[in-house]
């Protein structure tokens, strides 16, 4: 593992307006994640882990502090810029898979390349490669509703991988899967991580978190614990 930081977060504050009250969710958070790390973020609901993930994924803005992604300062970007960086640097994996229902497996995987204006033939060929890696080549023309949860999540991971991101953000990736499939998905994450891609998993399942090398516990908007697992 090298020590080049891919994500640096310093003194980040974020609060939401809830009615007349201000809900201070992230309270001066500091966090550095190096290239090639595989970490899990844990915490009870309301601890701010989803908010953190949204900020990391440039899906949400923060109030103060600084966030650098791959040495790019990320703050108050235009929607267009944000979409560009998301497409370039980040791959998302969601709990509910979030596949596009009317596109088949291959088209779903190829979608990020569509936004990069890669030609249809080329992006479908690349998508087939990634499906092959996931062992889903034979399912390429199937629609999402014809696939099992594990298959769907593998397609979602392939979709996250296709744009060769620096970071994969996974929000409860195993939340909708049984334990056996969950372990399979974690195996895939291990393989991806072995290629040098940083993986950040938000989870509340301890055995999933145990599979990562670094675990961060969030509580009330600050990091309560941050430790490396020793094998």
């Amino acid at each position, binding site marked *: 593992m090298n020590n080049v930081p891919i994500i640096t977060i310093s003194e980040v504050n974020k609060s939401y307006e809830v009615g007349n009250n201000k809900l201070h969710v992230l309270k001066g958070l500091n966090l550095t994640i190096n290239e090639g790390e595989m970490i899990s973020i844990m915490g009870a609901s309301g601890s701010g882990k989803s908010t953190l993930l*949204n900020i990391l*994924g440039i*899906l*949400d803005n923060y109030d103060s502090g600084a966030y650098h992604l791959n040495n790019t300062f990320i703050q108050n970007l235009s*929607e*267009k810029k944000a*979409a*560009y960086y*998301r*497409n*370039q640097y980040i*791959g*998302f994996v*969601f709990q509910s898979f*979030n596949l*596009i*229902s*009317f*596109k088949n497996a291959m*088209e779903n995987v190829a*979608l*990020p390349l*569509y*936004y*990069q204006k890669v030609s*249809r033939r080329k992006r479908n060929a690349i998508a087939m490669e990634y499906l092959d890696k996931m062992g889903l080549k034979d399912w390429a023309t199937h629609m999402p509703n014809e696939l099992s949860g594990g298959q769907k999540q593998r397609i979602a991971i392939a*979709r*996250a991988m296709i*744009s060769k991101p620096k970071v994969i953000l996974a929000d409860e990736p195993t939340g909708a899967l049984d334990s056996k499939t969950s372990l399979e998905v974690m195996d895939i994450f291990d393989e991806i991580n072995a290629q040098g891609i940083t993986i950040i998993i938000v989870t509340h399942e301890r055995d999933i978190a145990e599979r990562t090398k670094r675990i961060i516990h969030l509580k009330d908007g600050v990091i309560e614990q941050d430790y490396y697992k020793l094998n």
Partner: protein
Amino acid sequence: MFDRDKWQEIIMALKQNKLRTTLTAFGVFWGIFMLVVMLGSGKGLENGAYDGMGGFATNSVFVWAQNTTIPYKGFKKGRRYSFSNSDTKALREQVPEIKMLAPRLEARFRGNGANTNNVIRGLKTGAFNIFGDYPDFNKIDPMTIIQGRYINEDDIKYKRKVAVIGFRVKDVLFTPKENPIGQYIRIKGVYFQVIGLTRSQHNGGWAEWQEQTIDLPLTTLQQTYNYGEDVGWYAITSQPNFSATIVEEKVKNILKKRHSISLDDKEAIGSENVEKQFKKMNGLFAGISALVWIVGIGTLLAGVIGVSNIMLVIVKERTKEIGIQRAIGAAPSVIISQIITESIFLTASAGYVGLVCGVGLIELISNMLAKQAAAAPNSGGAMFTRPEVDFSVAMTALIILIVCGALAGLVPAKRAVSIKPIDALRYE
């Protein structure tokens, strides 16, 4: 240009709720269909009315003598008088704004069997309208000369005994195979040589009446039937840059002076101003056209608002999907273009079908009317002929439609990208 993924999404979004899409499309379809059919019908009505005018000079005025109603210069009211050849000469000299001046006189035979069977040829007889005319008259209310010629200047000058007969006259006096030109007919005991055969350009009763008419040179008629210098009425057209109304005014004043009629006497000279009638008619059709556009555009607008509404619903239904697309890198412009294309596609395709159906219906009616007219020429009452839609009008409608489609998509598209991707992703 053709982006398969984009169209896959459009077709998908529209197919998801076929009934809803169809009903929405129907709104636009109906709007443009109504617009086209109404425009076509308006045009048909207009054509019918103008066709009825035939080639009638639209800048013409007719004036005739009536009884005076005001005592003047020692004459009591209710005096009868008539125009004469000297009036014709005076008008020609004194009113330069006159382009054509056609004095006319109808022969009304008195005595036994006044106007019945006044024309004889061999064993055949008929009752027809007998007119004395000048060559110019056929330029003011033209008839189609299907054989021979109309009255000319020499006929007037030498008072030739020649006659131009209407089609119905020929039917009555001649057998179908006979050529009437050069033949003689006897009008109230006097023989006239037929020099021309005419058909009316009007329709209905007007045409029937016109085709039962025999035109003689005015001078011949005056001499032959003892009318002296009498002129029944004048048909007048104005010079191109002058209004017929001004000519009417001038002519009346001159005639009043010549016949010792008070200038205030509005009833002494009867007149009909075709220019005024024509303007009224133009106004009427402009009004109809404006109404058609207002109603048509209104209907269309209702349809387009329907599209906008349904696009809002589609955007709402697809909030999460749009969120996913944005999370994996779709720029807002991609989403906006997607939704506007969808809206234009829906509007334009529905509108196109409406346009085609509307034009189709108009063409169908037009064909049927044409067949009917061919089967029975001058059958009368053809107040509706050749309904048609200008190509340019149809194109304008289609362009309006596409612009409307884009506008209809604008609000939903803005809505789609105004939701933050994070909220869209959470949306259930």
